[in-house]
């Protein structure tokens, strides 16, 4: 099983990469390639050219800039797991990265690829939505920034325009908070049957702030805004959590695939939202 033919281009700078992407008709960006190459082998994807970002040093690394953690798009999941900065400031990323694929894939698979791919099965988009991250984007003529919460438009459709590349992910460092990423998968390495990311803050026994996002329970990752609102201002008892779960279930629209029927996936989706909420509450209280 090998991909169809294509031209291979390895630029040294982001400017070179965007220029090539813009003038080429059907070129794809190659990051870690662990979503793209399998799709090319199946001939589901057939780009005319690949623009390999591996040679651009500026796209790597994790740093703290003011109140933000900034992660270069070509940073691998393995590097995220090895980072003390991430462990200290956004441990939710560690929890999620550990549940992605297997060691070999995490050595190569990148954070930028995971968030920019537009596959609802990717884990990091929901995590980035829960953390209210911003994607830094460079195009052939200008730079812009797009919030993760408005980046995903449809199945493999994102806010990225022709010639644009996600260069970095900026995460505002949350204050003292509880967090959880709960993922149901059939086996190690699998995409989520259902997944839920929760970030919340407690004050005097009540939830003072909350964000909930869902993985693989719709054509895009979903921000469960009404579910989060059902918790804010409440003591997190069974009634409030039940209301949040019901509100999350109401926006789930999962595909009917080998991971289960939509009914099954909505059912377990709700259970995983509840687990993530309870874990995050316990962590926030602790």
């Amino acid at each position: 099983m090998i991909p169809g033919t294509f031209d291979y281009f390895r630029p040294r700078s982001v400017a070179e990469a965007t220029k090539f992407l813009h003038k080429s008709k059907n070129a794809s960006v190659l990051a870690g390639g662990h979503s793209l190459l399998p799709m090319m082998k199946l001939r589901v994807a057939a780009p005319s050219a690949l623009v390999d970002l591996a040679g651009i040093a500026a796209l790597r690394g994790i740093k703290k800039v003011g109140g933000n953690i900034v992660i270069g798009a070509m940073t691998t999941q393995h590097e995220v797991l090895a980072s003390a900065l991430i462990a200290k400031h956004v441990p939710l990323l560690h929890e999620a990265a550990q549940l992605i694929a297997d060691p070999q894939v995490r050595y190569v698979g990148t954070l930028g690829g995971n968030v920019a791919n537009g596959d609802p099965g990717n884990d990091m988009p929901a995590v980035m939505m829960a953390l209210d991250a911003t994607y830094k984007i460079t195009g052939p003529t200008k730079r812009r920034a797009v919030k993760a919460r408005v980046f995903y438009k449809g199945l493999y459709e994102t806010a990225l325009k022709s010639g644009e590349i996600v260069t970095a992910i900026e995460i505002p460092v949350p204050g003292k908070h509880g967090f959880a990423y709960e993922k149901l998968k059939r086996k190690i390495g699998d995409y989520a049957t259902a997944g839920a990311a929760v970030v919340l803050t407690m004050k005097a026994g009540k939830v003072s702030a909350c964000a909930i996002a869902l993985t693989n329970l719709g054509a895009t990752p979903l921000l469960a805004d009404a579910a989060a609102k059902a918790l804010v201002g409440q003591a997190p008892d069974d009634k409030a959590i039940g209301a949040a779960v019901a509100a999350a279930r109401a926006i789930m629209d999962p595909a009917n695939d080998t991971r289960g029927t939509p009914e099954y996936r909505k059912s377990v989706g709700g259970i995983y939202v509840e687990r993530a909420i309870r874990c995050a509450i316990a962590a926030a209280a602790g």
Partner: protein
Amino acid sequence: MSKVHVKLKINDQEMEGLCEPRTLLVHFLRENLSLTGTHIGCETTHCGACTVDLNGKSVKSCTMLAVQAQGANVTTIEGMANADGTMGALQEGFRQMHGLQCGYCTPGMIVRAHRLLQENPNPTEEEIRFGIAGNLCRCTGYQNIVKAIQHAAAKLRGEEFLEAAE
């Protein structure tokens, strides 16, 4: 389609070949360089039989283009023996602990375990199982693979592994 000249260092030897951009690293190793120890299993990034060590990382060579490995430092199963040709610690561990039956997954298992022990010379059983989660074996049930890696880890630390194979 024009061919690309790929040069890399494999098992401490400079090697090179011509291939199309779409040539996968595993095919380049096996067909261009005749290094057939690396196996092709599922071809879908699941089974890990094609695992090689590339710049200090375990990678599945069925999911990497040969051109992506341009200039890389690669170790394959052919590089796992000791310099004098005797079996390396992991090979010896797999032999002593019966860590293989059909042997198809073994090159990938050993190359992956090599990197795991470089990063964590004294792993727990749980850490070994998590560390080889990207390598599938359909024969052994993994018990003796875990013991083989423990055997090798002990040997590399200058200790003796006292448990018997299952």
